[in-house]
């Protein structure tokens, strides 16, 4: 009799777990990823997500945590915000000219390198890594309190402003057109490359005073000839 009791309890628990699992996704349709795809207008982006969905058998939005869509000719990221569980999103070497998704509240890694962006204003409380090199960026505004690395080299930046970069450790700005840069609010910075920017000597002097930071600039670059 005892074994029968145990198995009844086991089945009961399994049933409860299954019901819980169903109820957690009760707000989503049978295949929420499929439904979310209808909100994606860019055919190349839709195709990329659909391929990932098929490969990973995604059914629920909570499963979509990483997305890598490189070299796809994606022009727009409209509709991406639906995938709110994304922690890594990489759109390297596409044709994206604007980035404005909101709602990606768990994003930690964002790659928009080699896209023809001209201006970018980015606010993310969770983002740790930002790759935006080799774009056409001219203005950049960041508020990324969790960011530790920003690679924004090989752009045409004339203006770079920020509100919160308190955790930033590495900043790559090589080969831009910056004449000024606020270096007074980067308490965790320990490496910065600002060579190949038309900055004044006074700024280089101030950079040399940064504690615990290695700064490569044209004032101390031995390779400059």
């Amino acid at each position: 009799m005892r074994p029968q009791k145990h198995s009844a309890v086991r089945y009961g628990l399994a049933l409860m777990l299954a019901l819980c699992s169903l109820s957690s996704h009760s707000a989503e349709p049978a295949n929420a990823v499929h439904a979310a795809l209808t909100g994606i207008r860019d055919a190349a982006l839709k195709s990329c997500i659909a391929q990932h969905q098929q490969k990973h058998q995604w059914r629920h939005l909570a499963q979509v945590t990483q997305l890598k869509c490189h070299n796809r000719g994606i022009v727009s990221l409209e509709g991406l915000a639906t995938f709110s569980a994304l922690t890594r999103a990489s759109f390297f070497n596409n044709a994206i000219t604007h980035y404005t998704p909101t709602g990606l509240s768990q994003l930690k890694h964002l790659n928009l390198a080699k896209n023809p962006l001209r201006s970018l204003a980015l606010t993310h409380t969770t983002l740790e890594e930002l790759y935006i090199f080799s774009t056409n960026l001219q203005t950049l505004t960041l508020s990324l309190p969790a960011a530790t690395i920003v690679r924004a080299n090989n752009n045409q930046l004339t203006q770079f402003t920020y509100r919160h970069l308190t955790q930033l450790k590495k900043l790559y700005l090589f080969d831009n057109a910056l004449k000024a840069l606020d270096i007074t609010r980067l308490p965790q910075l320990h490496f910065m490359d600002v060579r190949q920017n038309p900055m004044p000597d006074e700024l280089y002097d101030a950079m040399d005073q940064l504690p615990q930071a290695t700064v490569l600039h044209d004032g101390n670059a031995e390779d400059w000839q």
Partner: protein
Amino acid sequence: MLNSIRLNQYCHKQCNALAFEYATGQLRGLKKTFFSLLLEHSAHAQQHVSFWQEQLIALNASTPELAPQTRTWQAIAHSTQQARTLRPGQVSPKYWLAPAATGALAASIIMALILLPLTPAPAPKADYFAVLSDAQGGALVTATSFGESKPGQGNHLLIDWQTLADTSPPQPAEGNLQLWAKSKRDQQVRSIAVLDRTQMQEDSTLVLSPAQWRLVTDAHSLIITLEEAGGSAIGEPSERILARGPCIRLKEALL
């Protein structure tokens, strides 16, 4: 400084062919520049050239001297005698020699002006030079950079896959090769360029922006990796390294 032991390893079978062309004066342009550099630092290259020079000298020494025939000498003596004695009515050479010489000189100048552009230009002067080898130490590719020799001409980098190793550059079905510079200063590796299909020919020239040129001038070594299409997505080289090698500044190396 160039490592002569490593350079000797680079002197593969192509080296012998280059040495032959060098010894016979057929080597031209960038190949001549490259081989001249190699010759200064590679004992093997020097041996190859010495070998061919001795072979060519020996050819000359082994050619038997032939005594001229008697009638040849007589013909020469007869013609010189004729020139010395003027017969009556003959015009002295002093009357026609000067105008003829002037005409010949003018013709020579015109010919020189016509032919000068057709002669090969002297080899451009290289600034930086790297021999990149694969994981087994076999030389694959040379990269030679040339500074702005003429205003507006720009800096450029010649990537040559065939001079040292008789192979064609790899043609990945997917992805691109990417050229990187490892900094002398901070040891970080930075991208110089993503090589497109046209730049993966037997030799190709990259025109360098000031920023790219700067990476070359600061390079401790150059690296070529295989990356996904468009290059590395994170701005760092992958582990698929095809070739790497030290980069040297020639002015310093040749001092």
